[in-house]
């Protein structure tokens, strides 16, 4: 029986509990939230693959066939030592995916034009995307926290100056800024490490803004004033009250930002300013396959799907986290 045609939820009726806080409550809400749970599954999956590629030093898998004399015992982030990667296979055959008439189960996703097993390259591609995504976001988060917290806490002209600077950096689209930075700082030979720093710097304004506004809103809370009135030192107020209470929303934002970072790094590699061949990276693979777009369609499809799934994982988790922490549009 539907009485009254208005069925829009409201958060103000007696049934709704007041906002719970604290980590345990948040965790419980995440557990209950389907979106967040699925995001967590995807992230775990991608992270597990990344971990595997770091442990599995057998880079020979990255080549065609079984170049067994090129076995690497050392576990390493591959983009750090591209010189150790096996050289492209001899065979210039372009094996199609397994479900194709000419395909074989030896190469479930086929091989790239250089004869390297595509499945293995996709798996190893997670390493660059995920580590760059995490590292660059972390860098931006740290830089942004410093700038944002200083601006928000001190206020006045410090705030003004920092925010003008932030606005300036913000005005240059991240991709452009990162390309200019990476190319010039690397002296014309960009690679992943410059990309991480570039992305990190480009995201400082984004994080600085959000952290500043969080600090400003927490600073207005009565418990901060209560702590001041009680004679608690400024340092302790920041450490014990301001940071823990601004942390949660910032984490939500950071999670969503990881997705954006991966997106941008993929674009960067696609244009040739990120990971450099032969490092397996999804963006780089898309660039290589771009020339084979007409002859081998599948080469362009797999890396894109890999990027999409990874980013979706972080977005799902971020969304779930946001729902769990934001009471306004809670069900």
């Amino acid at each position, binding site marked *: 029986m539907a009485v009254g045609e208005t069925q829009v939820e409201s958060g103000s009726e007696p049934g709704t509990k*007041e906002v719970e806080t604290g980590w345990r409550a948040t965790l419980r809400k995440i557990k209950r939230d389907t979106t967040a749970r699925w995001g967590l599954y995807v992230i775990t999956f991608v992270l597990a693959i990344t971990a595997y590629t770091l442990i599995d030093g057998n880079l020979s898998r990255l080549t065609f066939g079984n170049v067994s004399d090129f076995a690497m015992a050392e576990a390493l982030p591959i983009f750090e030592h591209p010189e150790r990667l096996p050289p492209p296979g001899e065979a210039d055959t372009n094996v199609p995916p397994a479900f194709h008439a000419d395909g074989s189960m030896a190469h479930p996703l086929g091989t790239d034009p250089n004869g390297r097993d595509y499945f293995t390259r996709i798996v190893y591609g997670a390493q660059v995307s995920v580590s760059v995504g995490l590292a660059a976001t972390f860098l931006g988060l740290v830089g942004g926290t410093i700038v944002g917290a200083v601006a928000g806490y001190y206020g006045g002209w410090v705030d003004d100056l920092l925010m003008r600077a932030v606005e300036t950096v913000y005005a240059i689209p991240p991709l452009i800024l990162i390309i200019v930075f990476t190319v010039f700082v690397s002296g014309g030979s960009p690679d992943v490490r410059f990309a991480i720093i570039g992305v990190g710097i480009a995201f400082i304004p984004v994080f600085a803004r959000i952290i500043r506004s969080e600090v400003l809103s927490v600073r207005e809370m009565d418990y901060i004033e209560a702590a001041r009135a009680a*004679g608690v030192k400024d340092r302790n107020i920041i450490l014990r009250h301001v940071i823990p209470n601004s942390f949660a929303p910032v984490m939500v934002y950071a999670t969503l930002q990881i997705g954006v970072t991966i997106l941008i790094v993929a674009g960067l590699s696609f244009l040739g300013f990120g990971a450099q061949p032969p490092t397996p990276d999804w963006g780089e693979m898309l660039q290589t396959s771009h020339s084979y777009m007409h002859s081998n369609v599948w080469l362009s499809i797999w890396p894109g799907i890999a990027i999409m799934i990874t980013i979706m994982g972080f977005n799902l988790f971020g969304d779930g986290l946001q729902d769990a922490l934001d009471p306004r549009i809670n069900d």
Partner: protein
Amino acid sequence: MEVRAVSDTVQDPSRGQSEDDDLLGSEMSGEEIAHGDALLEVDGLKKYFDQDSGLLSGVSFDPDSFPPVSVGQDHVKAVDDVNFEIRRGETLGLVGESGCGKSTLGRTILRLLEPTDGSIYFKGEDLADLSGEQLRQKRSEIQMIFQDPQSSLDPRMKIGQIIEEPMRAHGMLDDEGREARAKELLEKVGLDPHHYNRHPHAFSGGQRQRVNLARALSVNPDFVVCDEPVSALDVSIQAQVLNTMEELQEEFGLTYLFIAHDLSVIRHISDRVAVMYLGNVVELAEKEELFENPQHPYTEALLDSIPVPDPRESDARGVLEGEVPSPVNPPSGCRFRTRCPRLIAPDEYEWTDEEWYHTRAFMRAVKRRTFEPMAAAEIEAEFFGGDLPRGDPGEIVQRAIELVASDRSAGDGESGGESDAEVIGDPNVDWERATDLLLESFAERSICAQERPAYEIESEHGTETHFAACHLHR
């Protein structure tokens, strides 16, 4: 009745905390001031806020003028020259409507806000002069209770940590001692000591205000500023918390500055009451005196406005007209004069009471534009009963009426049949000039506009002096 149970316990060597006795020194120095002597004295206190801050603050931009950019700050005069004292062991009620500056005053006294000018003597020492660390140490003697039970407790901390935080900040006791004291305080304020490890969200609003109380009392303060501590609570819970506050006051010899907008609560808990309006204290007297014999027209209006929970009481309501002026440009002299029903007639004219009464009403009606434009004769009839004041005032009124009368210009003959829509844009009605004329000729010349009132008068109830900032007592 147990006296000072908590502090006794803490100081009791058998509880194992004897070394920390001297940390409760505030208690000792507090004894120097006898019950009933001034504990805190506020002298000429001012707190102005800049309207906005930042690099370009104070730079205003107006393309209509030349040069289009000008520099100059407007100040919000939230607290403007306030003087009073609070005596040891008493509760001073501070009452006023929203925006009158009472909360700002409370925070400025605590130096949570930096005073713009003036002194705050606490036990003879000027808090306004203290440097950061001196001030921080002084804070164990002065505490505060906040209005909002939701935001005044850090949601990520446990109740125990919250209560212990001030003690920790002042190096009071060791970990165990603090925990023992926190639990005792929980019991004192009427909570279960077992709640020590719970988070604030598990508590109702009333219970949270009790935690607030326990936190404030943990460092054994002498003086507590209570900023609307019960206004967010339901009526039946209000009474519980008020009673607890009173019991604790007696037990610990506390002095309260109790800030509230609710006159009933103020009447219940205060010994003396100060009434604030637009940044000024307009009246200060003992409770009975203030409520039974109010001497400031604003206080009277406030008292008349409260709905009394008694259907057989039918009093005059809503006696105040208009709205509170902006604290950026408050009225000169008495700040209440623009709304005062008893604005004093300017001395330079000869008035009868009735003449002044009519003129005042007309002046305000013009200023607020509360009547529809009508013919001059109608205005005369409506506001003056047909008789304008004699002499100069009469002429001024006459000129003002002409400015706002709908039949002002001789050329327009059909003034009778005009509809509202046509009147809207009537160029003949010059409200602004009429307002200026009336205000300049009358309101600005009243003593109320020219001098800041401050009078002490005899009380009818009690022995205290009665302060009233109203020229009616000159």
